[in-house]
């Protein structure tokens, strides 16, 4: 009767491995202009209750990475390599039909633009009911609807009993994103992928949605991948961070690693352009100069080279994503500079940043 399911599937089920393991994931698209390597060798693991942030500029491959996890980038013109395992279960080799059982029920995904992510011709409730019944058609329409009402209430939609019959355009942006989250949660997934869930929202609403995600992450042990280009968002909720540039991870580490001991000049640039309110004079350093690289024609060697003020001879070779700090094997980056050099070079005006190229 009650809409809160009593079954609590042990998330990491069989074996001792991580809940979600992405290994050497590569995604290429054949386009008219040539092959676009949108994602080039991404690795990470995710545990229940953890928030992993993926940051990077537009076009760095964040969304493609996320969508590939649940097979949404599969198409005749895409080429996917590597491995994605959910509790040890390989997803990349699953058939479309098998993947459908995973989507929504084990891994849920919400998207950037809540305005366009719900179908305008169906009520919000109907769309949630559809998600529920797609995975268990034995649930009757009316009990699925009750469940939808409870879910909407749980994500903070007031008067959910009535609003469940509203069409998406009768909801505000923040409410739509809440509805998307409610829909994502309907089947008690173990992983939530949120692709820029707050980018399209007002600042105050952004904070509310973030807190909602954080709450769910804590209360339900929901492993979360949070994609954003806003490091401010990352600072609030993430446990670990993946910095992407040109389809590759250029730095990965814990939240503290990335914020207090960043190793890659690109990360410095991202941090520098963050307005820090915790400092006496809130100000931001200039944005990273230059444009993100074209994936059709990546620079040889370090992909960040054309925009990097610290470039030197060795940068013509491709730097690997290696642990470069002897004391911290889990903090990896792709920059040839020595750690001591980095500590010196990243200090600008008393904070971390990327100096402007001369």
């Amino acid at each position, binding site marked *: 009767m009650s809409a809160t399911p009593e079954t609590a599937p042990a998330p990491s089920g069989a074996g001792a491995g991580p809940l979600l393991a992405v290994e050497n994931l590569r995604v290429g698209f054949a386009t008219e202009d040539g092959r676009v390597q949108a994602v080039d060798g991404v690795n990470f693991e995710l545990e229940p209750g953890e928030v992993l942030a993926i940051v990077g500029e537009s076009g760095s491959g964040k969304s493609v990475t996320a*969508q590939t996890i*649940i097979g*949404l980038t599969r198409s*005749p013109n895409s080429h996917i390599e590597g491995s994605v395992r959910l509790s040890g279960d390989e997803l990349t080799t699953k058939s*479309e*039909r098998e993947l*459908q*059982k*995973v*989507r*929504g*029920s084990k891994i*849920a*995904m919400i*998207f950037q*633009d809540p305005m*366009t*992510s*719900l*179908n*305008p*011709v169906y009520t919000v409730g109907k769309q949630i009911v*559809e*998600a529920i019944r*797609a*995975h268990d058609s034995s649930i009757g329409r009316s009990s699925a609807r009750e469940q939808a009402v409870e879910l909407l209430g749980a994500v903070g939609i007031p008067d959910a009993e009535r609003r469940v019959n509203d*069409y998406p*355009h*009768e909801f505000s942006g923040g409410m739509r994103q809440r509805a*998307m989250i409610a*829909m*994502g949660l309907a089947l008690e997934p173990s992983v939530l992928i949120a692709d820029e869930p707050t980018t399209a929202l007002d600042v105050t609403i952004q904070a509310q949605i973030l807190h909602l995600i954080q709450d769910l992450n804590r209360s339900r042990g929901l492993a979360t991948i949070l994609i954003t280009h806003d490091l401010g968002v990352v600072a609030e909720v993430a446990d670990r961070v993946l910095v992407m540039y040109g389809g590759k991870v250029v730095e990965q580490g814990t939240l503290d690693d990335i914020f207090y001991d960043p190793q890659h000049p690109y990360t410095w640039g991202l941090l520098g352009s963050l307005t820090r309110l915790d400092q006496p004079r809130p100000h931001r350093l200039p944005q990273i100069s230059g444009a993100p690289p074209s994936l059709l024609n990546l620079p040889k060697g370090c992909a960040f080279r054309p925009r990097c003020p610290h470039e030197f001879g060795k940068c013509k070779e491709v730097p690997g994503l290696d642990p470069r700090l002897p004391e911290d094997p889990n903090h990896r980056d792709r920059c040839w500079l020595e750690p001591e050099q980095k500590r010196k070079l990243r200090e600008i005006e008393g904070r971390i940043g990327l100096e402007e190229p001369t």
Partner: protein
Amino acid sequence: MLRFAVRRLLGAIAVLFAISVLVFLIFNVVPATNPAARIAGKNATPQLIKNVEKEWGFDKSLPEQYWTQMKLIFTGKATSYSLAHINIDKRILEGIPQTASLCIGAAIIWLAFGIFFGYISAIRAGGFIDRFVTVIALIGISMPVFWLASIFLYYLTYKIELFPASGYEPLSNPVEWAKHLILPWVCLAVLFAGFYSRVLRSSMLDVMNEDYVRTARAKGLSQRRVMLRHVLRNSLIPIVTLFGLDFGVLIGGGAIVTESLFQIEGVGYFVAEALNQQDFPSIMAVTIFGAFFIVLFNTIVDIAYAYLDPRIRLGTSAA
């Protein structure tokens, strides 16, 4: 919803009024020759011309002329002098069952085939089936109706006497009715089916890129359900628009070629006759009649829109 419908209907009446004025002006003011003489026909006596002048109000001011003529047409008193003195309105009304039988049957065929072909070529876009359907659709679109009708008539009614050659049987005898109409239905439907399949295909390809389709897939719906409930459903709006217009035109006497070639004496057939004789009262009446149906079906489309897209419904009822 009711208020919305009423407002649309009032709008439709206003549009019809404007059209009747326009038609009146085109037929009465623009021509340089004596309109009464043209109405009276080729071998009219001076006395007949005089009578016509009085009947159609040509001796009065323009607004009075308009009023007189509309009264004739709308009260069913207009006579065609060129076409054996028939009563125009009666002739149009008698043509409606024929025309409606033709158009409704054809519409069912073209919607079914148009949507089916559009759908399968969209879900297989770029593949063999898509290319095959595209070729078929283009052939259908480019085949002239009179040519197709002639081929049908020659091979299927004359060479092999599979179907009756022409004419119309009332619906009271359904088998004969259908037998007489199958060829005209197909002839009329082919062009539209081809065209609608192309429109639906491109509309579906657009909708497939929508964010909510990605959401639908992300929540684990089957491919089929995504396509039917999200892509197809949201792609039907342009089809409904087209259908309202096309169907209105045909019911209003637009199926001229098909009706003429198959000897279905409906409204379109009458249009052909009237045009042939340059019978101005008939043409005027039929134009207004046609406009009525076009406006009517446009209004129905608007109302169907509101049903198909809740944003429209709420947007206007709130205003």
